[in-house]
């Protein structure tokens, strides 16, 4: 891997609030804080995993980065191919257009994300056409190349998506994302809809492509075993905030936030000799429209003290490259796995 410590993307204090409107005049009565003051960076050539339970804001974060939706506030500094650092949050539509080829997305559902009425050539070739490759011959050649790259036969060019299995469709989606030579690829649950035997094939393909094309991945997932396998660093989100961010192995072996530890303990390990699920997490995830006071996790946390109810913990670096938002980080000894 050609990983250097040059930051490709730096997100600072990103917020995305969805207003709750009520009544005839659609008065705003509150906000769903889907993403609430999130900061992290992604180095070039690395994979950052974003994990958390449903509704924690991981998908909203990734969509804001791609500017599929505008963020409420915050900065998203992206280093372009030319080496300039631009703030994606401040660009308008036409300014974003040339940057879009550098950021692409791989979707979760390989059935819903391919237009059933377009052939493979049209699906994978469309980003090329949009970006000025108008010569059909040239495009055909490039699409065939891309199909070969993701392990599909170039003869499939004129076929429709229905003729392919879930794993093959995910390969088509990857080919489409890679057609414009992106640098940052946001993969939102790329393997969770696939069968176990196919999941491994897609993970291998994505690892292989990353090495060959020096891709940077933002990998959004909820399967912690897959995340551990695939990511260099992992950020754990809970109700719109990042609670912990660290190198993968360190995070799994020695989590510093009680929520991370509870997540780790909930992973069912595929070995009947190792019994998991020792830490019981009581209660439910709070609503991001009406989060608890202080630390959002305190009502469910077995280590909570009075301070946790009042003050929101600061997201701080307790060891080099290990960030935690917990008042008691460092003093707790929490169980990890692996």
């Amino acid at each position, binding site marked *: 891997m050609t990983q250097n410590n040059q930051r490709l993307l730096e997100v600072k204090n990103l917020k995305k609030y969805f207003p709750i409107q009520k009544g005839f005049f659609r008065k705003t009565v509150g906000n769903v804080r889907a993403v609430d003051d999130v900061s992290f960076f992604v180095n070039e050539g690395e994979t950052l995993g974003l994990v958390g*339970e449903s509704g924690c804001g991981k998908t909203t974060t990734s969509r804001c980065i791609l500017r599929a939706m505008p963020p409420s506030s915050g900065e998203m500094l992206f280093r372009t191919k030319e080496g300039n650092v631009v703030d994606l949050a401040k660009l308008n539509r036409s300014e974003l257009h040339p940057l879009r080829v550098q950021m692409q997305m791989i979707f979760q559902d390989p059935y819903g994300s391919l237009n059933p009425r377009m052939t493979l050539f049209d699906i994978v070739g469309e980003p090329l056409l949009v970006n000025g490759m108008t010569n059909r011959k040239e495009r055909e050649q490039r699409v065939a190349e891309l199909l070969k790259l993701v392990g599909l036969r170039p003869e499939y060019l004129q076929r429709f998506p229905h003729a392919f299995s879930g794993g093959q469709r995910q390969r088509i989606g990857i080919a489409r994302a890679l057609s414009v030579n992106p640098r940052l690829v946001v993969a939102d649950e790329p393997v969770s809809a696939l069968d*176990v*035997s196919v999941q*491994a094939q897609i993970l291998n393909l994505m690892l292989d492509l990353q090495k060959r094309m020096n891709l940077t991945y933002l990998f959004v997932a909820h399967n912690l075993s897959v995340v551990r396998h*695939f990511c260099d660093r992992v950020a754990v989100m809970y109700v719109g905030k990042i609670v912990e961010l660290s190198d993968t192995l360190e995070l799994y072996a020695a989590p510093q936030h009680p929520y991370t530890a509870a997540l780790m303990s909930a*992973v069912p*390990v*595929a070995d*009947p000799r190792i019994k998991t*699920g020792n830490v019981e997490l009581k209660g439910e995830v709070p609503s991001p429209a009406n989060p608890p006071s202080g630390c959002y996790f305190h009502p469910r946390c077995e280590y909570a003290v009075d301070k946790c109810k009042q003050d929101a913990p600061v997201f701080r670096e307790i060891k080099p490259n290990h960030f935690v938002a917990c008042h008691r980080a460092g003093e707790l000894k929490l169980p990890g796995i692996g």
Partner: protein
Amino acid sequence: MDKQQPLLSVKNLKTHFFMDEGVVKAVDGVTFDVQAGQVFGIVGESGCGKSVTMKAVLRLVDPPGRIVGGEIMLRRTNEDGSTNEAIDLVKLDANGKMMRDIRGAEIALIPQEPMASFSPVHTIGDQICEAIMLHQSVDKRAARKIALQMLKDVGIPIPEQRLDEYSWQLSGGLRQRAIIAMALSCNPRLLIADEPTTAVDVTTQAQVLRLLRRLQEQRNAAIIFITHDLGVIAQMADSVMVMYLGLVMEQGPVETIFHNAKHPYTQALLRSIPTVTMTPRVNLPTISGSIPHPFNKPKGCPFHPRCEKSIAGKCDARTPALQAAGERQWVSCFLYHDVEVSA
């Protein structure tokens, strides 16, 4: 198999779907026994027939599907608690009184989608009471009491209030618990859980699994646990059956399946999942190819085109039968025996 009489004994079950395009042999000769008080796991990837097997046991296979062969023997309980003779569910009328009495009361189902399984226009309480009143001779007030106790048992906070709420007012985890409460409300002796945790988060999954385990131990019910998640199976099941394209590949105690798997498919499947103890970011061993479409199932052993150890002229011509291979372990593979499925 154990000397004890099994609660459910499925023999050579065949369920086919007669479509315009041809016949899909979704379940093509499946045999297994479930003992009382046991968690029996069925694992397999999409299209392996695990859900159809479950539907056949409940006699819920819709046309164009039909049970075309085999038997499903269920041991019934008398009023006084003693067991009497087993009856063959295949021979019953799917919509008859007998089957309707069994379904819900003796065999209950925990479906996969908690959102789609509750009616959005009736309260949770009404729906649970309906099931109770259908199978037990109690009035509405008594049924409500039972329903309340059930919600308490599955650990739903403020159950009095939840009884009068609608399914869409509950979170995913609570909804899944409410479904479990409903399934358990008639004290079934066999619980079929069809991917009960695929739609929920890991922490909720851990809660639900712990709950199922506890309830099963308390009530000594048997659970057929259907999932594609090998981690969940390893944590939950006592005994495991691995299916592929409508056939049983291997069956045995959970320890044996995970640590001494014999069938190449089970071995490959276990190798291909990332675990929390392995070296990250190295290529995973994969199973080449993909699951064939049910219309063009390969001849012979269904796994042979993807199998590393397939024997040319044998695996592609004849279908291996499920045979004992070691203590309480059965495998259908020509590497271990030479018995084929009789036509």
